[in-house]
């Protein structure tokens, strides 16, 4: 099929009974985005994968039934489905098995995102090259995912300053690792 279809065209094609190819294209296009959302909110790769499967099945279900009235708003629709599903997951609602039974597992094979691989030795050198406060902020931030108060207290600066230091350090590390700022 034509993979250059925009989102709205894809929605219309699925709604018109475009078949599994159109649905597979939707899955290919949206799964990495949903998975990233899942990683951010669930902090677990497997949970993110489950989220991608549940959300995309829900989406296909809706598109087949013509429930997306504004086809150009596919991204908003999928994001909304992500938010609702994460809420459901947090409430302990598990619908995956039923959905798998209904739609089959073949279409739902995981699409692995291309995670960038880092040269850890180079990153260690880059970390050691940061200023002391930048290094402390980066480690406390990414090791313990602290963004504000504790780091600010240790450094004796405001939380806004911690953010400025963190931003500067991220840019420096990316530059040192050879990726664009």
């Amino acid at each position, binding site marked *: 099929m034509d993979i250059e279809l925009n989102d709205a065209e894809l929605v219309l094609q699925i709604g018109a009974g475009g078949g599994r190819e159109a649905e597979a294209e939707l899955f290919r296009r*949206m799964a*990495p*985005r949903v998975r*990233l*959302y899942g*990683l*951010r909110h669930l902090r677990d790769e497997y949970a993110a994968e489950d989220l991608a499967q549940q959300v995309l099945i829900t989406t296909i279900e809706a598109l087949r039934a013509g429930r997306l009235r504004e086809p150009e708003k596919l*991204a*908003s629709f*999928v*994001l909304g489905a992500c938010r609702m599903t994460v809420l459901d997951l947090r409430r302990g609602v598990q619908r995956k098995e039923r959905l798998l039974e209904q739609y089959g597992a073949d279409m739902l094979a995981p699409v692995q*995102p*291309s*995670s*960038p*691989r*880092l040269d*850890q030795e180079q*990153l*260690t050198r880059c*970390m*050691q090259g940061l*200023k*002391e*406060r930048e*290094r*402390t902020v*980066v*480690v*406390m*931030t*990414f*090791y*313990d*995912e*602290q*963004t*504000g108060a*504790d*780091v600010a*207290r*240790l*450094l*004796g600066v405001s939380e806004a300053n911690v*953010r400025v230091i*963190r*931003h*500067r350090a*991220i*840019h420096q*590390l*990316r530059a040192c*690792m050879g*990726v664009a*700022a």
Partner: protein
Amino acid sequence: MKCAAPIDAALLGDYWLGALAGPEEEAVELHLFDCDDCGRRLREVVALAEGVRKIAREGSLRMVVGDVFLERVAAEGLRVRQYAPPAGGGVECTVTAEDDFLIGRLAADTRGAKRVDLCICDARGVEQMRLADIPVSEAGEVVYQESMTFAKASPSMKMIARLVGFDDAGVERVLGEYTFNHTRSLPGPGAW
């Protein structure tokens, strides 16, 4: 496709950390659902964060940390060895194969110091390395993490940590010296 309005990597870092206000987070999320270019950049930031986490867990960086950090590594089951020599004094110390982090707690009166540096010196007190403008806790304590990679490779030796402060006029003064008499307890002679 190249993004016409790319989101800055540091802002994506804030998003990843959950540090954005609601409306800002919603705008970033909507953009990410429509833009694989920024999604790729976010993955790079996530990989960077994971890389930093891994390095932090190895205890291989020389740096100043906080108690919250040490509480977290202890909660992960990592082993922290700590020494707290008095200012002007020393301590006998070592590391074992089971240790994951090596910490020196350096207490000093830092009142009046606009900036504090930590100098790592050899046995004669000659400065070998300086960590400039380090964080000092409210209680006037510096929690220094020595590189575990370095410490485990080290032969028996003496190391002096010197805290120096700078006043408003930029005049440097010694706040405290702390001697670490390291005895190698790991097999082999040790060498860098």
